[in-house]
């Protein structure tokens, strides 16, 4: 089975069924499928074939969803890119994936257009929306609306099978370079099916999704809904909680996928009014653990909802969930494995440990990725031989404790990866960017506990002699070069960074606050 099979069937059988709500506009399965086919025809006519990569650099919206399914339809590999990605990272990723097509927001044109001529394999650029004032005209780039209006003909069957890649999703790696997680149709269909099964989402459900579709937690809301004929109310982000609540209630949403940051936002305004969440029957959480205060708040304010605590990573999408009835008994557990999946802990030598141990989590199943795109060493580090000849299992790099019944409790990372707003952040990536600043001699980035983001990023910087650069300037420098979730919150200037005996920066000491402060403007 392929990822888009069910969507196509539902669109053919029930074209008037509600599929997607964006702003005030409601899209039905039939019309959405028509748009998907037209975009797919355009891509095919431009020469985008089976296995070709298509970079999708868009904000949340119907166009994103159409682009995604058009990729599946023509056998191409969708590469969703966070619209907050700045120039350097975009350049890196585009040169690594060598896309045959780029479907990009016109407003981001100043960032992507310099790249288009440097990509030899690029066959078409489809621009979505209106470019910022003063931008040059689209020229030979196609306009999304125009493509949908003029595309004629039918999509040729590309011959895709479920072993073919459906998507490459970029995530942060400990080396500081982003890694593209390669996922086949089988990987994604497997994860989608398991999640649908344990959550019990059905065709009558309406999912409220304010999570970015470039984040797999957001992406799967659409994939799940479109597999069973449910609908999605899609928002672009979740800054203003009152607007979020108005959508949740006003559009009769029944499923609310949350991350702890969203619950913290709600808590800032006290308890909800009873009508705000009356229709919600399911609240899910992943990306970071809910605190006891979060859990109490959700229970009080979503009285009709079952609450699922979950855990996963892009490399296999989802690993575990805690059945709601276990929440009181094990509030800090992220549960056990999903249907059709095996999970276990291993020691330093890779030996399998019994329940009641501490070790690295290993995941086995058809949802485990094929590897990192063009990064063999990183792939071999993380996908290691399993017990069956030829099989590879996923070593997550996440340390867990298990109880006697196999329920898992997250302890931390094996490496120094930071988890901010549910997304992995590589300290190395931040350090590389900051160390390019003229006034910076030495820098270390560490995660510090934060009530809203899970972890916030704190920079320790040794300045060049005589440099008077302040925290504000450093933060502005970062904001211009990083996605929001990885932008540091604080800067501390130090005389020297503490080092371990083998010369590496001692991040544990920094987290404990063992530093020699420098004069001048400090943190902010």
């Amino acid at each position, binding site marked *: 089975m392929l990822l888009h099979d069910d969507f196509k069937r539902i669109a053919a059988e029930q074209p008037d069924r509600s599929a997607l709500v964006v702003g005030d506009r409601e899209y039905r399965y039939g019309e959405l499928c028509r748009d998907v086919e037209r975009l797919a025809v355009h891509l095919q006519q431009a020469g985008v074939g089976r296995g070709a990569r298509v970079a999708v650099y868009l904000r949340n919206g119907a166009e994103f969803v159409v682009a995604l399914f058009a990729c599946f339809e023509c056998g191409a590999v969708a590469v969703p890119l966070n619209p907050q990605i700045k120039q350097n990272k975009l350049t890196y990723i585009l040169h690594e994936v060598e896309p045959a097509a780029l479907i990009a927001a016109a407003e981001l044109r100043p960032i992507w257009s310099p790249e288009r001529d440097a990509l030899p394999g690029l066959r078409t650029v489809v621009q979505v929306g209106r470019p910022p004032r003063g931008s040059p005209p689209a020229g030979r780039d196609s306009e999304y609306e125009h493509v949908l209006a003029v595309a004629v003909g039918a999509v040729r069957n590309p011959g895709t099978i479920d072993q073919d890649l459906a998507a490459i999703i970029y995530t942060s790696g400990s080396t500081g370079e982003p890694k593209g997680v390669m996922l086949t149709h089988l990987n994604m269909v497997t994860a989608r099916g398991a999640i649908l099964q344990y959550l019990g989402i059905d065709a009558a459900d309406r999912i409220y999704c304010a999570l970015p579709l470039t984040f797999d937690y957001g992406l799967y809301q659409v994939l799940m809904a479109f597999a069973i004929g449910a609908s999605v109310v899609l928002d672009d982000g*979740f*800054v*203003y*909680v*009152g*607007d979020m*609540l*108005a959508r949740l209630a006003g559009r009769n949403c029944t499923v609310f996928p949350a991350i702890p*940051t*969203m619950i*913290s*936002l*709600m808590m*800032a*305004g*006290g*308890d*909800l*009014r009873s009508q*705000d969440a009356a229709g919600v029957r399911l609240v899910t959480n992943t990306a970071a653990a809910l605190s006891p205060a979060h859990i109490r708040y959700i229970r009080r304010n979503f009285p009709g909802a079952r609450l699922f605590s979950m855990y996963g990573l892009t490399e296999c999408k989802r690993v575990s969930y805690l059945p709601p009835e276990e929440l009181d008994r094990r509030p800090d557990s992220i549960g056990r494995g999903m249907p059709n999946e095996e999970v276990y802990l291993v020691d330093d030598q890779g030996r399998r440990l019994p329940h009641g141990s501490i070790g690295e989590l290993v995941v086995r199943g058809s949802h485990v990725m094929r590897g990192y795109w063009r990064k063999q060493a990183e792939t071999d580090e993380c996908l290691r031989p399993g017990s069956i000849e030829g099989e590879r299992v996923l070593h997550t790099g996440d340390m867990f404790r298990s109880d006697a019944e196999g329920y898992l409790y997250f302890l931390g990372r094996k490496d120094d990866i930071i988890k901010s*707003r549910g997304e992995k952040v590589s300290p190395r990536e931040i350090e590389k960017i900051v160390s390019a600043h003229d006034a910076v001699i030495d820098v270390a980035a560490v995660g510090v506990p*934060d009530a*809203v*983001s899970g972890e*916030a990023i704190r920079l320790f910087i040794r300045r060049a002699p005589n440099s008077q650069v302040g925290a*504000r*300037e450093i*933060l*502005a420098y970062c*904001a211009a070069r990083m996605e*929001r979730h990885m932008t540091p*919150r604080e800067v501390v200037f130090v005389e020297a960074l503490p080092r371990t005996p083998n010369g590496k920066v001692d991040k544990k000491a920094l987290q404990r606050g063992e530093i020699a402060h420098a004069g001048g403007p400090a943190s902010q």
Partner: protein
Amino acid sequence: MPADRHRSRTKMTDTRAKIRTFLVDNFLFGPADASLDDDASFLELELVDSTGVIELVSFVEESFGIKVQDNEITRENFDSVARLAHFVESKLPAAVSQPAQS
């Protein structure tokens, strides 16, 4: 009552100034004297995110002695200096905030 009107206009100017100072000090990276248009959208400027909004809510609650409800934390009420000042004024006791058109 021109005196009252004058007082409320001054009040509104104060409210905006207070909000602007907070934003420039806490969110607006760049030169310390950076200006911020009263009608500029925080979202479009990418000035605030979810964490920023929580800080903004605490700031107006503490500085103006008001209580903000979840359903009031909207783009309409919060997304520019002018909007937020107007919202804050509307939450203050009526006698002080009366004719707040400026």
